[in-house]
């Protein structure tokens, strides 16, 4: 165990209101090497989908990962359930007692009293943790098995995790979950197949399936973006109610900043596998500091008809590069208009060195050289907590 992790664990033990702390998470997918690459001794190349990010989630909090497609937000969410191979990182998670006991029974080395490093567990031994961390997928048409009845879909997690429940108790649990997601009366739904339900109802089933295990964290991957606007608000309200009643935390993954402003407490804006700005959701959206966040906020259309009379000015250049070919230095500098404006002052920084995190006035973190005068954070994790 390296010193860093020890330090982290000490911090984490003292901060009881934090359920999950991720530090230096990397998910790199290796690219195929051709024969000539091997013969010429070219180094292995990687798609750096998530490239060293750190964040934490408080209890009963909605934490948002936002960004454009390909920024690594979904990969981050999946890595928490170990659905993608994790290259590096520490993920301390305050699990339930039973979960920790089951992990110990399976021979997993549980480092803390009431927490475990989820990235150190072998993926095959992750099963008990998946009770505590559940996921809701974006597409309710693809995430439910079309051959199963709703009852079977909802009973499956109970059976997989072998809770000591009788058939009746299982049924009771399923009914209660259906009532929680406001599919009433539940008897009407248990015998149906997914194709007999509308999109909104299916997404409710997906939510019921996620919460039936009483998890501590639910990763919600764009849970409303496939739904019509008129029912979207209802679904968001349902998610909020469930959160309050069950005291869980959400990791809310979205590309829609307007939605995140309504339901998220804190937000992390991602660009090419890196968090570029992180802090209070409303403050970041109403007054973005990082040049990328500025462009992202400026690009979002608003329901104001006078906008049609003018062109929208989005301060960004070019297109997003491939994650296999991340620019050196600050990964945003080739598209950054601030860099272009101050090229004389910044040319020794932006294209050469990766920026550290700086703390802005209101306590948010900005990953940009423009804030060089501010307090610098060497290890991003420590700052969030202190």
């Amino acid at each position, binding site marked *: 165990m390296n010193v860093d992790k020890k330090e982290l664990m000490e911090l984490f033990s003292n901060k009881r209101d934090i359920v999950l702390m991720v530090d230096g998470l990397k998910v790199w997918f290796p690219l195929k090497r051709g024969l000539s690459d091997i013969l010429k001794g070219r180094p292995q190349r990687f798609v750096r989908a998530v490239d060293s990010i750190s964040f934490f989630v408080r209890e009963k909090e909605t934490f948002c990962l936002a960004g454009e497609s390909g920024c690594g937000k979904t990969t981050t969410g999946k890595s928490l359930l170990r659905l993608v191979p994790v290259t590096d990182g520490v993920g301390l998670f305050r699990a339930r007692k039973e979960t920790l006991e089951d992990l110990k029974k399976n021979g997993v080395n549980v480092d803390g009293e009431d927490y475990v490093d989820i990235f150190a567990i072998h993926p095959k031994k992750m099963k008990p943790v998946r009770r505590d961390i559940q996921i809701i997928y974006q597409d309710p048409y693809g995430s439910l098995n079309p051959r199963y009845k709703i009852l079977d879909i909802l009973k499956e997690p109970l059976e997989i995790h072998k809770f000591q429940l009788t058939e009746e108790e299982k049924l009771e649990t399923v009914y209660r979950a259906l009532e929680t997601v406001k599919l009433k009366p539940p008897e009407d739904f248990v015998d149906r197949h997914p194709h007999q339900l509308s999109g909104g109802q299916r997404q409710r089933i997906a939510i019921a399936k996620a919460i039936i295990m009483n998890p501590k964290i639910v990763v919600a991957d764009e849970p409303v973006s496939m739904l019509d*606007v008129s029912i979207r608000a209802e679904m968001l309200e349902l998610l909020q109610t469930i959160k309050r009643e069950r005291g869980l935390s959400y990791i809310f993954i979205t590309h829609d900043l307007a939605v995140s402003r309504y339901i998220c407490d804190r937000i992390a804006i991602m660009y090419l596998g890196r968090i570029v700005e992180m802090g209070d959701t409303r403050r970041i959206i109403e007054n973005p500091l990082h040049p990328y966040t500025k462009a992202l906020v400026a690009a979002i259309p608003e329901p104001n008809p006078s906008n049609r009379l003018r062109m929208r000015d989005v301060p960004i250049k070019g297109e997003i590069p491939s994650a296999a070919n991340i620019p050196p230095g600050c990964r945003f500098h080739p598209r950054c208009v601030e860099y272009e404006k101050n090229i004389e002052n910044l040319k020794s920084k932006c294209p050469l060195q990766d920026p550290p995190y700086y703390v802005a006035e209101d306590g948010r973190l900005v990953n940009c050289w423009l804030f060089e005068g501010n307090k610098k954070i060497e290890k991003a994790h420590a700052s969030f907590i202190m």
Partner: protein
Amino acid sequence: MALTAVLEVENLSTSYYTFRGMVKAVEKVSFKLEKEEILGIAGESGCGKSTLAWSLMGLVPPPGRVVEGSVKIDGIEVLNLSESERRKKILWEKISMIFQGAINAFNPVYTVGYQLAEPFIYHKNYSKKEALEKVKELLKMVGLNPEIEKRYPHELSGGMKQRAVIAMALALEPSVIIADEPTTALDVVIQSQILNLMKKLKQDKKLSFIFITHDMSVIAEMADKVAIMYAGRIVELGPSEIIFNRPYHPYTSALIRSIPRLRGPIEKLQYIPGEPPNLISPPPGCKFNPRCQYAEELCKKEEPGFVEVEKGHFVRCWKYDSGKQSSGGAIK
């Protein structure tokens, strides 16, 4: 300046004849599109907005067909034309369409330039060389490097492909361009660039667009005039400012209050209880009545007419229909 309508649609109805029954996907739709105007058509999935677009193009997929009504493009009644006449004279030359998901519909084995050149070769009998010259002009117009005509579709990014698709729709300088969800698959930054491009083209080339999307914010960004569709009908049609700032129809106002906003105070988001109706067996009376908080007895029995409540502003709701106009009335 006297405005001239480039597209006049009156009482257009389109139905799908499925085994389970007749689906009236578009029912008695009437509107006009003036020159250099953008009409936004908004509605939830399944409300008939894409079917309406296909009906205007004469491309309704079987088992659907246009049942009644009239569509006049530049004064020509197109519903009476035979399919081959329509193909030769109307499609792409008078009316063209940017299809939903068209960026994935490029043929991967031909260059982008060749695919863009096809309309010139088949419609205008240009030689291949002449056509490619025209293609280069087109690409420049949509803000692309003309050199990309030699590239294959997989070599372009999503935003570049969307620009190429727009170029294709503009090729023969049609009077009307229908854009069906042109930015839905794109990220917001690219979306704003594409919307800017379409605004610029509208001004420079004096184009008329029909812009179809489920995203009310995008409609606000583009449309001069907005039509809100519900269950195959236009329930409200009017200038953009009126629709967004003081809508009349209960559905429109609920829809607008359900949009999460990026600025201003955070108010509780409203939603519309229930779900859109099944169009095989729609509810009697006003199609919105089961979800409407103002629904009365009359709403459950009879369908309201399409009434002009002020100049250029039409509503299909009993609150504003005094019964003077016959139901399903056309624009006078």
